[in-house]
């Protein structure tokens, strides 16, 4: 009874507080920055997300389409006045914009027939919680000139926008904005640039390339190693860059995936979550093994790439999920993707936190 009363009181007082300080988005933002400053912002542990509900929602064909492609990561500020009901209109506007960019100087009309086609579609289920906005996909397709082949569109460029476990970002964004902080692009960079320009002009947002630092790469390595698979397609491979001038030197280190899994199992203690200590210990084991054989301190070098049977990531912000369709059936795709994108989103939050500190 006592505990019930106290919680009740707490809720009431916090509401009262909201009322008095008038919780505007800016104040909420400040509040969350304060919260983050007073508590250490690294999660010393990360929960392995449960995604049973999401598996049901997502469209296997579309998800399969996202496999085996190399995606370049960008972080994105919230989109102003973006609406999921206008996707068709956006598609025609964007295709006109692309056509105009391609034939600089010549006027084009919206709705005119171009030799390219743009589609916008939602990716159902690609999100972490119910509050996260739906992910959406943008594609540029080439239209064949011959009418007989009209049905076969070749995909020239693909990009998608998502928000996975973006709770702390969402609470600071006001109603007019849609928060999809992660943008992934596959295709020619000129197309990425044109699409980026259109989004920046239309939704007043800003794209910036997202690098994955060695700290987060080791997290990904540990989490992907932890995934149990029936059949491993490739070795677990690490690439370190030795900082020596004038030429840089790379060290590649490949391990049998089952050995890597065994090592992880010996390090991993708490089921359902991964802690910073476990990740550090996992990497330290690899370092000391290498040092024993080659007398080189890998800990003095920089981890630039991690690739496993599950996925691979490069420090310059390129990732690829290498599961094939058959293993996808037994292994939920989103499970891995969540791990990966969760880290990216966390990274964006942290970058914002840094920016706030600088202000």
């Amino acid at each position: 009874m006592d505990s019930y009363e106290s919680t009740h009181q707490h809720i009431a007082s916090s509401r009262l507080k909201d009322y008095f300080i008038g919780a505007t988005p800016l104040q909420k933002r400040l509040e969350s920055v304060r919260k983050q400053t007073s508590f250490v912002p690294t999660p010393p542990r990360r929960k392995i997300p449960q995604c049973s509900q999401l598996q049901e929602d997502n469209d296997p064909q579309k998800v399969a389409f996202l496999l085996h492609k190399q995606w370049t990561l960008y972080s994105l500020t919230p989109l102003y006045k973006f609406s999921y009901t206008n996707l068709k209109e956006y598609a025609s506007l964007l295709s006109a914009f692309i056509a105009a960019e391609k034939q600089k100087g010549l006027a084009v009309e919206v709705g005119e027939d171009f030799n390219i086609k743009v589609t916008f579609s939602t990716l159902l289920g690609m999100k972490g919680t119910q509050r996260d906005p739906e992910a959406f996909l943008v594609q540029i397709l080439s239209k064949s000139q011959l009418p007989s082949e009209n049905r076969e569109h070749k995909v020239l460029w693909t990009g998608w926008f998502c928000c996975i476990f973006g709770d702390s970002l969402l609470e600071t964004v006001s109603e007019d904005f849609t928060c999809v902080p992660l943008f992934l692009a596959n295709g020619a960079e000129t197309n990425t640039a044109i699409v980026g320009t259109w989004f920046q002009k239309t939704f007043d947002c800003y794209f910036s390339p997202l690098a994955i630092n060695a700290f987060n790469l080791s997290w990904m390595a540990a989490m992907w190693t932890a995934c149990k698979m029936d059949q491993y397609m490739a070795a677990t491979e690490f690439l370190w860059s030795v900082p020596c001038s004038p030429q840089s030197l790379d060290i590649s280190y490949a391990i049998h995936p089952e050995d890597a899994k065994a090592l992880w199992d010996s390090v991993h203690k708490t089921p359902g979550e991964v802690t910073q200590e476990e990740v550090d210990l996992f990497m330290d084991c690899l370092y000391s093994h290498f040092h024993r054989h080659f007398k080189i301190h890998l800990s003095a070098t920089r981890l630039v790439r991690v690739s496993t049977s599950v996925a691979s990531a490069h420090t310059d912000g390129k990732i690829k999920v290498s599961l094939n369709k058959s293993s996808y059936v037994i292994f939920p795709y989103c499970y891995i993707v969540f791990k990966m994108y969760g880290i990216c989103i966390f990274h964006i939050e942290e970058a914002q936190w840094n920016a706030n500190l600088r202000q």
Partner: protein
Amino acid sequence: MSVLRPLDKQPGLNTATILLVGTEDALLQQLADAMLKEDCASELKIHLARSLPLPSDVNRPRIDLIMFVVNLHSKYSLQNVEESLRHVDATFFLGKVGFLAMGAGQESHCSIHRNTVTKLANTYRSPLFFCDLEREGFRATVAQRLVRMLQICAGHVPGVSALNLLSLLRSSENPAPEDL
């Protein structure tokens, strides 16, 4: 002399000695040069070491301030500093030890999280400064700050002691370690 103690030697006349510990030899050398360029009434002595303990057969002056330099791009430099810290007497941590974390500007190159060094500095109750030693202008600023700190730690600034400075450096942004 495996453990460094702050007061086991007589101070030299008008001499202030700093010990810089870190794996980045070239950058430490440049930092030392920048410190020597600073205008300072005391006679500066700068010792560089990759790690502690220092060899015992060398005659060296009393050390007034130890700065541990961590390169955020290299886990090895952190491990090295953690190992070296064990060879420092507890009384040194009454204001005569500091941490420099370099490389935070290039976030994409970081192997060590910022909070790891913050925790380390809090554990040892010592101040932590983030810096960029690769840019000359930034290096000069760090050098200036270190020279000033060193003068205080050597007792060359009337009215301020090392311990005094330590308590002044603890701002509201760096909560006391008990609060973490």
